[in-house]
């Protein structure tokens, strides 16, 4: 194949991937995900205002902490459910079969879908961070929003991988939520397993090894979008660099695993 033919092929694949991505965004808009997410934001603000009124001191700090935590959980929840819901509908309506019958490589389809979902995730992280600007410094909010976006990318990629593998909502949702909970708590689990107060035994040693082994294949999501960055300004540039590297590696890992599964499916 000549160089110009290869370039033309790459351009064609890129344009198809971007088209899938664009239609993913249009579908999200028509599904009113923006309104749903704004509802989550409004409820979070109202609850944080209520907690602010309960605080005897450091009211700003209390509200920032409550709001950031709720926004973080809310956006993760919305992104997971949306990715799974949209993918399941495509599988059930045979849209995937239709797409693949149009000379569209499976890898381009998945990449396009993921690009769409990470754009939605970026929008969610941006919207979630806007109310925090009233409660913390812009630099701290920027760092929080950036790493929260990376966290949502990982979660969206994991949800896409699960739904590609299982094709069914319930197992995919269960596994994705369990993954998120474990990735958020794996550092604490490692620390607890290394406690010197617990008796030495084969079971505790096995527990330590198991926790360390699981930690190797999970991203440390507890190091992303920390509320302490907003309340205590403790974020460093290293936090962003490390989170970017981790997100890039993990999203690529999940995308390649999802591609592997999709190529093996008999469609």
């Amino acid at each position: 194949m000549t160089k110009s033919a290869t370039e033309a092929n790459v351009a064609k694949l890129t344009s198809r991937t971007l088209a899938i991505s664009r239609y993913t965004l249009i579908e999200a808009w028509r599904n009113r995900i923006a309104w749903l997410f704004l509802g989550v934001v409004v409820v979070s603000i109202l609850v944080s205002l209520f907690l602010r009124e309960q605080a005897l001191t450091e009211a700003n700090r209390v509200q920032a902490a409550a709001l950031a935590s709720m926004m973080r959980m809310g956006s993760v929840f919305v992104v997971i459910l949306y990715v799974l819901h949209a993918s399941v509908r495509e599988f059930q309506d045979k849209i995937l079969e239709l797409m693949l019958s149009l000379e569209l490589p499976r890898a381009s389809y998945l990449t396009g879908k993921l690009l769409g979902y990470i754009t939605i995730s970026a929008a969610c992280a941006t919207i979630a961070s806007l109310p925090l600007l009233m409660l913390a410094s812009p630099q701290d909010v920027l760092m929080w929003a950036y790493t929260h976006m990376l966290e949502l990318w990982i979660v969206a990629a994991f949800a896409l991988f699960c739904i590609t593998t299982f094709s069914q909502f319930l197992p995919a949702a269960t596994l994705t939520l369990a993954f998120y909970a474990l990735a958020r708590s794996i550092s604490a689990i490692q620390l607890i397993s290394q406690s010197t107060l617990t008796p030495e035994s084969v079971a505790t040693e096995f527990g330590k090894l198991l926790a360390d082994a699981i930690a190797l294949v999970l991203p440390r999501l507890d190091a992303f979008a920390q509320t302490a960055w907003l309340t205590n300004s403790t974020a460093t540039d290293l936090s962003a660099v490390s989170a970017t590297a981790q997100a890039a590696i993990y999203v690529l890992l999940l995308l390649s695993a999802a591609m592997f599964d999709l190529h093996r499916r008999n469609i």
Partner: protein
Amino acid sequence: MARERVLKNVPVRIRWLVPLMLAIQIGFRTVEAPPVGAAVQLAAAPSVNNLRMAALGEPVGLAVALTLYLQAFDVQPGVSLAFRDLDYGRLISWLDAIDGLDPASSYPLLLASHVYSRVPDEEKQRAALQFVFDRFHDDPVHRWRWLAHASIVARHRLNDMPLALTYARAIATEANDPSVPSWARQMHIFLLEDLGEVEAAKILLGGLLASGAVTDPHEVHFLLERFKKLEGGEISTVLPKH
């Protein structure tokens, strides 16, 4: 039609990409700094009411999680057991909050009487013992053993006989139940006999094990280890001057 196609249908690049990315992920996590705790940054505990709200109807589950969090806070690798650097006001507020969430558990009392009372600071030791004494009144029949240990600590490490007798007499007067062994209600006698700390701990531990009050194998192990260290002199009976 088979649900899955054979492996050769997966492009070679993708077949290699998955293990390659997995290896990069493991490599990244291996070189990444391990999680560490900061033993001096214990935040103030929220109120029990706020914690109950945050527990979403699972106060016992949250209490267990907070207990393990508090316990791990001081024993993380890379962080020395610098109890004297901890704000004991905040520490006690956490123990109070955990006790409020799960009053049936004695875990906070174990931490206060056996772990946090080891601090080489008399004021902080007294704060830990006072927590045990305060919470003992909530359920004397089930919590007497923590106060019994607090009594020994008061006698031998604080050298405060009146405080030790106050605790011992509280057990005698408030823990009125057949399940409480008679020797526990007569603790003030062996306190007045002026036994050494090891002897007193031996009586307490032997009595606890014989009476069947301690059944959890982890707790038995923990208490035996503490006792061995005490006997071996690893835990000083005299308050260090820090």
